């Protein structure tokens, strides 16, 4: 076999791998995420408004025909609650986590690539932001703008930007000092190019891992934010809130608390499986 033919074959296999994408665990994760997204999308049309009427079942009723997840602390159908809750958890948390990671990572790369005063200003700004107690921040957001879902997304995102920034910056400064970035600089490339094409591909693996975790945090944060009156208004409830408000079911068999907790776990694990399996992961290697 001569060399060119050989490398052709090699690239063909990498292409095939890329098309397949994620491997078994990743695909599984993707399926779960897509399934929940679908639920989030169709649930409001599918589940009737009266499905969550209170007092329909005994409080914390066990699973039964027609009410497969039993009842919650007000005797509402738990299945309907979980399905309707998907919308807030999946959409809000996903968007907020993505936004937090995207903004944090972009700013981090900007800081790493620019260095100097911009780095200092951004870093100190982020330190300030992260030091504001999140409760205080949430309260001022409600007070200033009232409660709405977009605001909820914004708040959750802003709360997690500094964390994402810190991690990404720590990764990016190491890469930004490498020779191949210097080469791009000698070409006079814009900062955007340096960030997007030279730095990002070489930090993306840890950054996405961070994204996966940040998603988990946002899901959990939503519960406490909605307790503070931000965003989702009852009867609508995100999964974290479902867990919180049904905590009393824990000793009675606990379906009402276990079901939303499992829903959260299934989604977050699925997201992390996808994140771990993102293509190109093993082909990218940082070289010093």
């Amino acid at each position, binding site marked *: 076999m001569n060399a060119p033919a050989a490398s052709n074959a090699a690239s063909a296999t990498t292409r095939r791998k890329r098309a397949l994408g994620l491997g078994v665990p990743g695909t599984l994760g993707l399926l779960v995420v897509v399934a929940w997204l679908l639920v989030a999308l169709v649930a409001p049309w599918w589940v009737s408004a009266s499905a969550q009427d209170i007092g329909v079942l005994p409080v914390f009723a066990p699973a039964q025909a027609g009410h497969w997840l039993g009842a919650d602390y*007000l005797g509402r159908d738990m299945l309907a609650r979980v399905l309707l809750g998907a919308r807030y958890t999946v959409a809000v948390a996903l968007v907020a986590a993505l936004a937090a990671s995207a903004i944090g990572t972009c700013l981090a790369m900007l800081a790493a690539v620019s260095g100097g005063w911009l780095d200092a200003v951004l870093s100190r700004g982020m330190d300030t932001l992260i030091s504001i107690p999140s409760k205080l921040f949430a309260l001022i957001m409600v007070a200033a703008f009232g409660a709405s879902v977009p605001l909820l997304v914004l708040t959750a995102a802003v709360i997690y930007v500094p964390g994402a920034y810190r991690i990404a910056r720590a990764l990016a400064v190491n890469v930004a000092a490498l020779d191949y970035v210097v080469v791009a600089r000698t070409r006079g490339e814009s900062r955007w190019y340096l960030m997007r094409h030279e730095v990002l591909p070489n930090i993306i693996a840890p950054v996405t891992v961070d994204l996966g975790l940040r998603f988990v945090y946002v899901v959990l944060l939503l519960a406490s934010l909605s307790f503070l009156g931000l965003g989702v208004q009852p009867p609508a409830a995100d999964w974290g809130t479902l867990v919180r408000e049904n905590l009393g079911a824990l000793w009675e068999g606990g379906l009402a608390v276990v079901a939303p907790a499992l829903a959260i776990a299934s989604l977050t694990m699925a997201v992390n499986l996808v994140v771990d399996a993102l293509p190109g992961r093993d082909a990218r290697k940082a070289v010093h």
Partner: protein
Amino acid sequence: EAAVAARPRYGGRVRVATATASIADTLDPAKLANQTDYARSRMLYSCLTRFDARLTPEPALAERYETRDAKRWTLKLRNGVTFHDGRPLRAQDVVFSLMRHKDPATASKAKIFADQIDSVRASAPGEVEVLLHEPNADLPAMLATFWFAIVPDGTRDFNRGIGTGPFKLKEFKRGLRSVMVRNPDYWRDGRPYVDEIEVSGLGDEGARVNALLSGDLDLVAAIDPRSVRRVEGDPGFRVFRQSSGQYSNLAMRQDIAPGRNREFVRAVQLLFDRKRIVDSVALGNAIVANDQPIHPSNRFWFAGLPQRELDLDKARYHFRRSGLGSAPIPVVASPAASYTVEMTLALQQAARAIGMNLELRRMPPDGYWSNHWGKSPVGWGNVNPRPNADAVLTQFFKSDSSGNDAHWRDPKFDRLLLTARSEIDEAKRKALYADMQVMIHEQGGVAIPLFISSLDAHNARLKGLSAIPVGGLMGYEFAEHVWWDA
């Protein structure tokens, strides 16, 4: 059995958890703000009078009290009472303790009541004379409330908790816990029974119940109805239930839309499925109320008022007449006011059936009272049990009261209130209070769906608890009544 139970045993230590604790915890009677404060004040201080199980005032530090016109009162102080620091109780202490509430600088929570007082003076050794601006037959009841606890004359630093109460302060950590030890010189013979009481403020209901069940606590306040089955499922523990005058009310402001519209108010009142709410929200730990604030156990309760029930047809009729369309009407509720979020959900559900579009706005518990209560056009409030009809009516329905969250102004009501207050004839008073209850029921702009029972849980061996319905934990007075069974 009753004979055995009636003979309390001495000794032991009781660990109690109340539901609130914050750095605002205070021992200053003028500032008491929450259950934990109340409970502590009942241990450390005594008032001139006290409540019995039916909220009738009876003598305490004041041995006797008399009046002819309900305006000028003479109170004879009990002899031989000493403060925790050994000083004897004198008339001057009473003058100081009552008059300080009138000074705005004290920022007393009881100022609105204290303002009825014109002057207090030591008329003779061991005797004080209270002169009111207007007659008030309920003065003894007022003096039994927490804020009018008696402290030594001139006290500035309240952190030592010097009073004449059944317990002395041993440790006080704001927001965490306090420890009290038995006061051997307590003026009530033979009391208290236990040697030491430790009060903690534990905000998390689940944590309170768990700590009780694991044996780390002996008595916990304010448990959730959903925990009742759990506590009662264990033979070692009991639930202590008191039906009291606590209620949450939906205030529909009378001065602005949509509450200005009588038809709307009536429609809303007819939309409450009260029995169902009692069952599914309070799990039976409440009684149905009738859109007026007087609890059935009160001697002035008007039994003749027909009970308002869920009536969708009538509600639809009134809602149509109100002319309000399907535009969303925000209803402000908060975890700060018990059951209000849940009750709004129930209301919302019923409203849907008549095409009324209620939109729940859940607000954060903190800042609720100052930011939302009484400010939103339609919003919930919550009223703790008051010792007498006059108190609750004055504070929450009188035209000029800042607690009048429905902003309902009716000069006739105000007149009735004053007349009733000064009326000494019990029957006449009763009639006056009945009129007022009808007025509120018909025009008050509030919906009061239910009276909430207080639920405390305790170790089965802890005895001596019985109802004093001004609040949970025996009107917060449990400390001098409880004792350990063998």
